[in-house]
């Protein structure tokens, strides 16, 4: 609540500023008799006024959104759209009082709406359209979008008109054609409102796509109907001939198919363009955006459905562009789209509230009431009829509850409002009544239905969207099911959607991919491999997040194991854990994160918790298991085959290709840990021993850091619940595995896949970074071969450097912590610790010189 007050205050302040500067013309005048002089600085608000106002709007929208989400109680109860409308109402009231509403920039005009605010939202919707559910339900969606919208328009229009013969409207007369025009704009479900509401209630994919798809595709129908009835109203009721109606029907096909065609054409051109952007990757996101926008504008220009055009443009581009452009560009595109659509949505809802406060209203209780009622009733009737028709061919029938949610989710929104605003008052006399009724319907649906649909979904126990863990087996089995069902459909001779999908997929692979991708797909199932890669990365990250429970960070682990004396040489790693480090190194990981954040706004805390829970309990927590296993082995001397196999299995596959014998070599060392424990018991003492020696040492620059970090590590040792031998053992493995796992990821990236080859940035970044940190990597060949606990395994420097070079600190750590020692095949940890006390002074010197060279 506090935040809300805060933002209100902010709005008032902003309003005040706008008012003050915007009315400058009146207050700021040159005195004519004053001689002209050069001005050091000039106040010139006129120059920027319009853009300034728009920018302020965007800022206000963002701040409002931020403010709302600071208060969880508020966003839990009310959908964001409601809050934004309320905010808009407040601002509108303020502007109304201050008579600023006359200024053009402050009210929603339909040009702004259709040219700037709407396209990004629709593009985002098209770009992130879940293709499979969309095409699986295409028949139902089309039926609802076309026939149901038509049905609603006719019924609402005629019933509204019919009621004028009753005294319900208080004697106000409505003609038939204007009523139909009004019905055309009011009966279309609004994609923006549906998107805003449904993204918060998380119903299952099927239900969501049916409602949302309908709202997207009904644009063609509502545009045609609206335009047709409006021009009929222009022509005048008596002058209409049959030809006009036939042409109207014809124009539907032109508008719908024309929109789709333009969208696909621009999408294909866009994909084709990205085929050649290898050397200018910076422009890639822009190409996607520009072509999509151009598709929208072109179709608006030739008056076909722009919404359909930009939707299909987005869908086509998503299919191919992401294979062509670099991962960074891909991430940027997705991010920019999310950002734009989110802010546009905010502004639209704010503008709606704002524009409500104006003089151009004419409240007619009967009419408004009837409109709201008819919208509801015919929505329910329409869905009931057409969903049942759709059930005749649907494999997965729509249940009654589905139908209820579908009818209840039929929200009206800003498109209807914007269309109502552009009505020509000269032709349609009752424009004010229509605008008012539109606002009433929009507010009713957004507020009452929008707020109650969440609880309703919970109450009716509607199947929720399942956020699936991407598992390899699920992907594999899904794909297998597709194949099997396609075959069986062919065998049984009932060519269903599976066969169609398979045919489209073949067409896609044989032709489109060949023309539009930089590298034609040379293997059958790219997606399967992509999934695997994604999972692999995630697994690696999780493993290291889990390891964090034992060790504060991988760098500290290295320190404790290798050279405790060098603690002071570096401040704590900038990265809290390895997953952050990997995330920082692999841009593609930022996208899913963002997306999940976007999609489950307000739930990310929950997701975090879930993630951590997952880390603690799930399969990939093989690391603690490994530790347990080792302890068992140490203490009892017997090996538990189950855990052994499990541990090996979980890790083996990741490292196998590169380090075939690492684990086999490592595991036999298990029993030796007993002796190590003995030695390690001395270790804290060794640390303490080392510190007084250190205080004698010359490099004063690092001494400030020294006490803190040292005490931390000592404390860690003394508090550790498990024998420190285990600890160091597992730590050492952690530190070793971290580079390996990510090396593997890196190699996945630089591997032979067509997708990967088309993403040169990775190689670029590796070489760049390697070059940049070459001074640091210079230490590594020496260190790499020598330090037994880091990587005695055949891991090439290039790999190692390539993986970590993006974080210079990290490189630095490895460079400085690794201990120059005589090469040995595999010295036991024991030996190192034996040597430690002897070597301390020597290493001290080494360390200081190294640190000096490094600095």
């Amino acid at each position, binding site marked *: 609540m506090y935040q809300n007050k805060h933002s209100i205050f902010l709005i008032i302040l902003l309003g005040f500023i706008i008012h003050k500067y915007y009315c400058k013309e009146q207050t700021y005048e040159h005195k004519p008799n004053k001689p002209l002089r050069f001005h050091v600085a000039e106040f010139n608000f006129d120059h920027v006024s319009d853009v300034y106002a728009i920018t302020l709007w965007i800022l206000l929208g963002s701040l409002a959104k931020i403010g709302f989400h600071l208060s969880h109680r508020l966003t839990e109860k009310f959908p964001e759209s409601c809050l934004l409308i309320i905010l808009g109402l407040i601002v509108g009231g303020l502007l109304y009082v201050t008579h600023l509403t006359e200024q053009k920039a402050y009210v929603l005009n339909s040009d702004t709406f259709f040219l700037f605010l709407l396209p990004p939202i629709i593009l985002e919707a098209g770009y992130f359209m879940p293709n499979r559910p969309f095409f699986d339900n295409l028949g139902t969606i089309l039926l609802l979008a076309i026939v149901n919208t038509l049905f609603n328009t006719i019924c609402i229009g005629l019933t509204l008109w019919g009621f004028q013969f009753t005294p319900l409207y208080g004697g106000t007369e409505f003609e038939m054609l204007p009523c139909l025009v009004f019905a055309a704009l009011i009966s279309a479900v609004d994609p923006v409102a549906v998107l805003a509401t449904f993204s918060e209630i998380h119903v299952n994919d099927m239900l969501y796509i049916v409602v949302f798809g309908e709202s997207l595709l009904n644009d063609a129908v509502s545009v045609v109907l609206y335009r047709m009835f409006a021009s009929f109203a222009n022509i005048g009721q008596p002058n209409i001939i049959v030809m006009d109606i036939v042409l109207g029907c014809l124009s539907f096909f032109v508008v719908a198919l024309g929109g789709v065609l333009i969208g696909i054409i621009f999408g294909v051109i866009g994909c084709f363009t990205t085929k050649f952007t290898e050397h200018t990757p910076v422009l890639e996101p822009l190409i996607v955006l520009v072509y999509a926008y151009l598709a929208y504008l072109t179709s608006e220009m030739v008056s076909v459905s722009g919404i359909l055009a930009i939707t299909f443009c987005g869908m086509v581009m998503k299919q191919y562009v992401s294979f062509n452009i670099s991962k960074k560009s891909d991430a940027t595109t997705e991010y920019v789209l999310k950002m734009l659509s989110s802010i546009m949505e905010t502004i639209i809802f704010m503008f709606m509230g704002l524009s409500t406060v104006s003089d151009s209203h004419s409240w007619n209780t009967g009419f408004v009431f009837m409109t709201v009622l008819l919208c509801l009733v015919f929505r329910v009737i329409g869905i009931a009829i057409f969903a049942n028709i759709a059930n005749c*061919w649907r*494999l*997965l*029938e729509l249940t009654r509850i589905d139908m209820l949610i579908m009818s209840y989710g039929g929200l009206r929104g800003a498109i209807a409002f914007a269309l109502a605003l552009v009505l020509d008052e000269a032709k349609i006399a009752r424009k004010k009544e229509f605008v008012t009724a539109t606002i009433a319907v929009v507010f009713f649906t957004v507020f009452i239905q929008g707020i109650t649909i969440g609880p309703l979904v919970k109450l009716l126990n509607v199947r929720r969207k*399942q956020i*699936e863990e991407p*598992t*390899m*087996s*699920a992907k*594999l*089995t*899904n*794909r*297998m*099911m*597709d*194949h*099997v*069902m*396609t*075959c*069986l*459909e*062919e*065998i*049984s*001779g*009932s060519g*269903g959607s*599976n*066969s169609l999908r*398979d*045919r489209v997929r*073949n067409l896609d692979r044989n032709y489109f991919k060949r023309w539009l991708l930089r590298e034609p797909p*040379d*293997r*059958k*199932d790219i997606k*399967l*491999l992509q999934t*695997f890669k994604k*999972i*692999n990365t995630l697994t690696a990250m999780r493993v290291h997040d889990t390891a964090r429970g034992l060790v504060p960070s991988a760098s500290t682990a290295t320190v404790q194991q290798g050279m405790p004396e060098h603690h002071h040489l570096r401040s704590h790693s900038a990265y809290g854990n390895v997953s952050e480090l990997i995330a920082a190194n692999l841009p593609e990981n930022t996208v899913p994160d963002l997306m999940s954040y976007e999609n489950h706004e307000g739930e990310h805390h929950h997701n975090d918790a879930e993630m951590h829970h997952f880390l603690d309990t799930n*399969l990939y927590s093989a690391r603690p298991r490994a530790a347990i296993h080792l302890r068992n082995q140490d203490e009892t001397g017997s090996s538990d*085959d*189950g*855990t052994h*196999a*499990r541990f090996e*299995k*979980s890790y*083996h*596959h*990741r490292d*196998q*290709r590169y380090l075939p014998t690492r684990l086999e070599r490592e595991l036999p060392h298990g029993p030796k840990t007993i002796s190590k424990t003995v030695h390690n018991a001395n270790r804290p003492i060794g640390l303490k021993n080392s510190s007084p020696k250190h205080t004698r040492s010359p490099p004063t620059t690092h001494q400030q850091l020294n006490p803190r970090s040292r005490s931390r590590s000592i404390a860690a040792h003394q508090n550790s619940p498990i024998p420190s031998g285990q600890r160091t053992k597992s730590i050492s493995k952690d530190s070793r595995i971290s580079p390996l796992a990510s090396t593997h990821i890196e190699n996945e990236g630089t*591997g*032979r896949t067509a997708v990967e080859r088309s993403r040169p940035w990775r190689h670029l970044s590796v070489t760049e970074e390697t070059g940049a940190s070459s001074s640091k990597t210079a230490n590594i060949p020496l260190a790499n071969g020598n330090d037994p606990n880091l990587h005695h395994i055949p891991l090439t420097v290039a790999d190692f450097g390539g993986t970590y070079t993006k974080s210079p600190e990290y490189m630095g750590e490895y460079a400085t912590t690794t201990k120059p020692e005589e090469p040995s095949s595999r010295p036991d940890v024991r030996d190192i610790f034996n040597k430690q006390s002897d070597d301390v002074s020597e290493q001290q010197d080494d360390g200081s010189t190294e640190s000096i060279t490094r600095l």
Partner: protein
Amino acid sequence: MGSNASIMLQQEDLQNICQQTGFTAKQVQRLYSRFKTLDKRDCGFLTREDLLCIPEVNINPLGERLIDVIMDDYGENNKINFKQFIFLLAKFRRGRVKSSTTEFNTRDSKLRFLFDMYDRNHDMKIDREELLQVLKMMVGGNIHDDQIATIADHTIGELDSDGDKSITFEEFCKTLERIDADDKMSMKFLS
């Protein structure tokens, strides 16, 4: 064509089949005519070659494997007659309500069919070799064996909960709980 086929199908056979499988008479007749179309030599059973003649099956990466399963588990001597054919397809009839569910089209039997796609030696376990075979079919030839092996290991690691490096049917079902296998493994039979 359809009328011809229905004549050849005995009336009591038809009723019998309908009762057992839950197909409607029209659906069975339609499937029978389909069966006749596939059975080009008109000998009352389909062979491996008959099925492979369907172009979509022929190019499907899992087509041959599917035919293996059909012939081995549902037919006999590399032949499948109409009754076996329709019992096979009955598995994939959509059982929406409880009453329309027969012993054939339960979720379990659908999953069992999927499981059989992997498990060709009928030891009720998917081992690494079997998984590798299927993976190779599905991923294509251009990929390195190591990579496939890695994927196979990972998949087994995901599913295997008792650590025997193979996947039992229970393990297989457990991880597919979240997938709507029942819906996906169903198809609409024309009537």
